[in-house]
Structures are given as structure tokens and as C-alpha cells.
């Protein structure tokens, strides 16, 4: 498509609305003076990345993991220890952490993948807890000070891209934004490939997949490696952003559940976790701001209720429903390509359309 063509097409709502959205995303840090709002934006992007990583194994591959915080934690701890002890720049630490996380994902994943359904979910809880209990009670591994339950406070090394530390939120925001776009791209590539189709087949019916020559164990191990690699990257970002990591906040089961919720509520498609993050993180923040301290735990009641409603009424996640509304909206705005959607009834569904 040539340049002229794109500009010409911008008169249609289906082009100018996304263009506007991208512009807003890009200039978001400049639209507000309030760093807290930017921080919420960063958390949204970070959850979108973590949700996407979770989605590769759980959404695409149908293996319900409730222990994904462990992979975030491993990425965060590895890069932080390298940062603290070897003065290694987090950019390299991020890759090392992600690789270690991926290796760990394969090691725990390989035996676990022989388990089906509920057994697999239980196993993920177990290794999540094991990692937490281990780190919480280990102060020292050889010469490395793991600080156990106390957690590690990252030293401030000055504000530079090299040290991944900045005095404003905007650079963090842009790193997270790039991470999110890369995650979307990765998921899109996976989803639209033989690998993605195979994962969906395994998630749907493993016996049938095997009868067609799909090597389930190998596919799941690949998916686990990629998924935990993404989580490891997110973990490093998390550590550098908050400058503190500790087992009580990083490795707890509620964090795992939150990551999973983002993917489940959004839906098992590429954009599902992204939508999930853009919906859930603000809900969490809003309930805490509006009700925090007065009605404790309300946001979790809301999360739980949303989850139950989604499972009962929209097992493919909310994405298909949002699409329907969006297309109708485009049709009303007069976009010629979407006029069919004025009367559409059922939401579109496709490959591996969500929770079974």
C-alpha cells in the first residue's frame, strides 16, 4: 500500500479511529501532568504484556496456568541480582533473566504437560508456591544475598537509559509501549502460523491432535519457553520500574490470578489480554481510589463477579462482544466497509475461541 493510499483511506472511520488511538497512545504521557496517571498507564501496558505471555500457553494452548507469577519473579530476581552484584545493565539482565525464566518454564513445564486439565492447573499452583516459599526463606545462596522475605531494593544508579532508570515516568511508559507492541506482534505471528494452529488443536482436543501427527509435548514445551521468556522480560521491567522486588508482592498467588484474569476476561485471541488489561487495571485502580479503606476487598469482588459473568455468558471473553459493538459503531459512522455489521447478531468466532 502506498503512502497516498493510506492518507486517502484516513477519511474512513475504520482508519482514522485507530490512527487517533495510536496517536493518543504515543502522546499519552504529554496529555497529563499527573505522573500517577502515567504510572497507571504503565501498569496497564505491563499487564497487557504479561497477559499476552500468559495467553500463549494458556489461551492459545489451552493449558490453564495459575502460577505464572513465578516466571515474572524469576526474570525479576535474575536481572536484579546481576544488576546489584555485577553492575550489569538491566538491558542485558533482561535477556538473561528471560532466558533463565524460559529454561525454568521448560524444566517445570515438561513434566507438568503430561498432566491434563485440572491436574495441570494444580501443578502450576504448586510450583508457584514452591518458588515463593523458597525465596521467602532463603537469605543467602553461596555469596549471593537473596534477602529472603525482605526483598531487594534496587540501588539508584542515576538516570540513564543504560541503567534503565529515569526520573520521569515517560521513558518507562515508552519502553512498556514498545514491549506491548512487540508482544502483540509475537502473538499475532504465533496465532497465524502452523505452531499457533497446533497449539489451538492441542488445547481443544489433545487425542485428536495426536491422531493428526501433532507432537503435543514438543509444542507445549515451545509454548512454555516463549511464554515464560515474555514473563521474564516483564519481570525485569517490573523490578526496574518499582525498584523493589520481594516474595510477598511478586510471587503471591493473587498476582498469578491477576495475570490470568487479564487473559481470561479479554479472550484467547491476540488482542484479548490487551483488552483485558485496559479494562481490569483501571477497575482495580478506580475501586481502590473510590472505595479504598472504606470497603475493603471490593475490587476483588468486582473481579470475581466479572469473571463469573464472563465464564457464564461470554466464554470467548469480552473481545468478540466489543468487536461487535465497535463494528456497529463504525457502520453508524458511515464506514462503507462495515455496513454489513449494522444488523449482525452473533459475535464472530474463530480459531480456539476461548475457554471451553
Amino acid at each position, binding site marked *: 500500500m502506498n503512502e497516498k493510499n493510506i492518507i486517502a483511506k484516513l477519511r474512513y472511520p475504520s482508519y482514522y479511529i485507530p490512527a487517533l488511538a495510536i496517536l493518543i497512545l504515543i502522546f499519552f504521557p504529554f496529555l497529563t501532568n499527573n505522573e500517577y496517571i502515567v504510572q497507571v498507564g504503565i501498569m496497564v501496558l505491563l499487564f497487557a504484556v504479561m497477559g499476552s505471555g500468559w495467553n500463549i500457553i494458556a489461551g492459545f494452548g*489451552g493449558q*490453564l496456568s*495459575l502460577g505464572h507469577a513465578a516466571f515474572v519473579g524469576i526474570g525479576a530476581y535474575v536481572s536484579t541480582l546481576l544488576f546489584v552484584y555485577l553492575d550489569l545493565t538491566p538491558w542485558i539482565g533482561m535477556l538473561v533473566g528471560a532466558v533463565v525464566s524460559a529454561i525454568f518454564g521448560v524444566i517445570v513445564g515438561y*513434566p*507438568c504437560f*503430561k*498432566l*491434563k*486439565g*485440572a*491436574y495441570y*492447573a*494444580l*501443578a502450576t*499452583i*504448586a*510450583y508457584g*508456591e*514452591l518458588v515463593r*516459599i*523458597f525465596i521467602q*526463606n532463603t537469605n543467602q545462596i553461596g555469596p549471593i544475598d537473596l534477602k529472603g522475605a525482605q526483598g531487594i531494593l534496587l540501588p539508584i544508579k542515576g538516570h540513564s537509559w543504560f541503567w534503565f532508570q529515569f526520573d520521569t515516568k515517560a521513558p518507562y511508559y515508552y519502553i512498556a509501549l514498545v514491549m506491548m507492541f512487540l508482544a502483540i506482534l509475537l502473538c499475532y505471528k504465533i496465532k497465524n502460523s502452523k505452531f499457533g494452529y497446533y497449539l489451538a488443536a492441542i488445547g481443544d*482436543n489433545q487425542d485428536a491432535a495426536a491422531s493428526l501427527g501433532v507432537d503435543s509435548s514438543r509444542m507445549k514445551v515451545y509454548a512454555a519457553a516463549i511464554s515464560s521468556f515474555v514473563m521474564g522480560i516483564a519481570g525485569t521491567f517490573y523490578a526496574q520500574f518499582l525498584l523493589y522486588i520481594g516474595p510477598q508482592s511478586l510471587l503471591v498467588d493473587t498476582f498469578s*490470578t491477576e495475570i490470568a484474569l487479564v487473559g*481470561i476476561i479479554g479472550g484467547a485471541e491476540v488482542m484479548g489480554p490487551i483488552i483485558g488489561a485496559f479494562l481490569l487495571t483501571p477497575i482495580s485502580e478506580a475501586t481502590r481510589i473510590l472505595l479504598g479503606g472504606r*470497603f*475493603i*476487598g*471490593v475490587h*476483588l*469482588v468486582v*473481579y*470475581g*463477579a*466479572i*469473571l*463469573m459473568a464472563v*465464564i*457464564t455468558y461470554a*466464554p470467548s471473553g469480552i473481545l468478540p462482544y466489543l468487536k461487535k459493538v465497535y463494528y456497529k459503531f463504525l457502520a453508524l459512522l458511515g464506514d462503507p466497509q462495515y455496513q454489513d455489521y449494522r444488523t449482525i447478531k452473533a459475535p464472530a468466532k474463530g480459531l480456539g475461541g476461548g*475457554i*471451553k
Partner: protein
Amino acid sequence: MGTMTEATINGLFMGSLYGLIAVGLSLVFGVMKVVNFAHGSLLTICMYAVYYLVMKANWNSYLTPILVVPLLFIFGYVVQSKIINPVLKREFELGGGHAVILLTVGMMLVMENLCLLFFGAYYKVAQVPISSLTLNIGNIVISVPRMIAGIVSVILIFLLYAFLNKTDMGKAIRATGQDREAVRLMGINDFKIYNISFGICFIMLTLAAALMIPMYYVHPSAGKIFELRSFVIVVLGGLGSLNGAFLGGIIIGLIESVTAQFLSATTAEFLIFLVFILVLLLKPNGLLGKK
């Protein structure tokens, strides 16, 4: 030596109580192949019910089941038929999946945090006269409520076992767990059986709550602590197997008690999860589970 004996006795008593708590989880799994992640928060609700009856109406904790059991049986029945069954139906149609598991995760979040909203984050302990009663044999001290809990748990598990094996309803429940389709062909409404099973799960939890109130605190997340244990126990014994749940309970109770004695309570916690994951990997059907 004395402490070792005490640790073992305590492990056995706690173990059978764990078994009683886990048995409902195992039953629900055995019948409808669903791991109920809300099990712990259901226990919390039962504990609050018993606690308030003891504190506000001055009931003897061990008598509370007379009122609480029917109430919570009905509650469980309704939850199963109105909330879980619709999703379960779809899951059957599509052939296995995670929908019901996730539904129970949602239920857990809602119930646990509703407890927090309604009852507050305070620890509530019902100090009743029996709470501090002990039995002294030589230099061995046995806590009476613990002993009652341990022994009654064994009896209750046995009664449930007898119910499932001797009565028509029990046989129908077991048959449904083995072959849903066949049971339906025999004219039994399988979903009704699910409702009843979930109700029975509540009965066992209520009874466990009545046994625990004299010696344990109530808190919105009190049940969650037992829930993780229950998962370990039912997997260890074999998901769906009642004697397995009992055996698993005893094993976990002993591991916890004896490891904490020799090493430390934190090591015990680590070890429990290690055993859990090893059993999952090496013998996922558990020690007594059927293939």
C-alpha cells in the same frame, strides 16, 4: 520421646480433620470432575455461620450442625444448580475444559472478599470452656477439642463412605461419577445428583467448621489456608477417592507435625508442596486413585 509421640498424635488428629475438609473436594471431583477452587472460601462461610451461632446465640459448637447443616446444604444445592450447572453443561457439550475451574476461582474471589466486607478483617476466636481442656497421660498432653475433632472426623468420613456405598442415593452418586451417560439412561437426573453432591460437600465442611471453631480462629482468609492443604491431600490420595482423601489427610498431618518437629515449620510448608508436585508428576492418580 514424649514430644515425638505428641507430635505424632497431633499429626494424626489434624490429619483426620484435614481429611474431613478435603473429602468434600474429593467427592465433588469424583462426581463431576471439577476441582473446586472455592472450597476454602466455602469453609470460611461455614466457619462464620458456626461462629455466630456460638457467640450470638450461645450454642454449643458441636450442636450447631443441627441448624447449620440443613441451611448450608440448601445453599450448596442452589449454588450448584443455579451457578455451576449451566457452565458444566456447556463444558460437557464441548468435551472437557477449564470453564468450571475458572468459575470457581471467580466464586472464591467473590465469597472471600464479601466475607471481608461483611465481617471485617478481624480475627474471631470462640473461647468456649472446652477450648482449653486437656487430657494428661503421663507427660503427654492432648488437647481435648483437637482429639474430638480428630476422632469425630474419622467417624464422619466413615459415615460418608457408608452412605455412598450402602444407600441408593449414595450408589446413584457413585454411579454418576463413573458414567454420567449410563446413569442418565437409567432415568436419573445427573445434574440433580451434582446438586446433592455439592450439598453434601457443604455438609462435610459445616461439620468440620463445628469441630474447628473451639480451637481455631475465623478470618475471611482462614479457609484459604486449609484449601491449599486440601488440594495437596486430594491429589495425594487420588482425586475422587474418599479413603484417599482420608489417607492423604493423615500423611499431610504427619508430615507437617513431624517435619516441623525435626526441622522447622517453614521447611514443613516447603516439603508439603514438594510432595504435592512429586505426586502430581510421578503418580498423578494419587496413592489410591483409580485410573
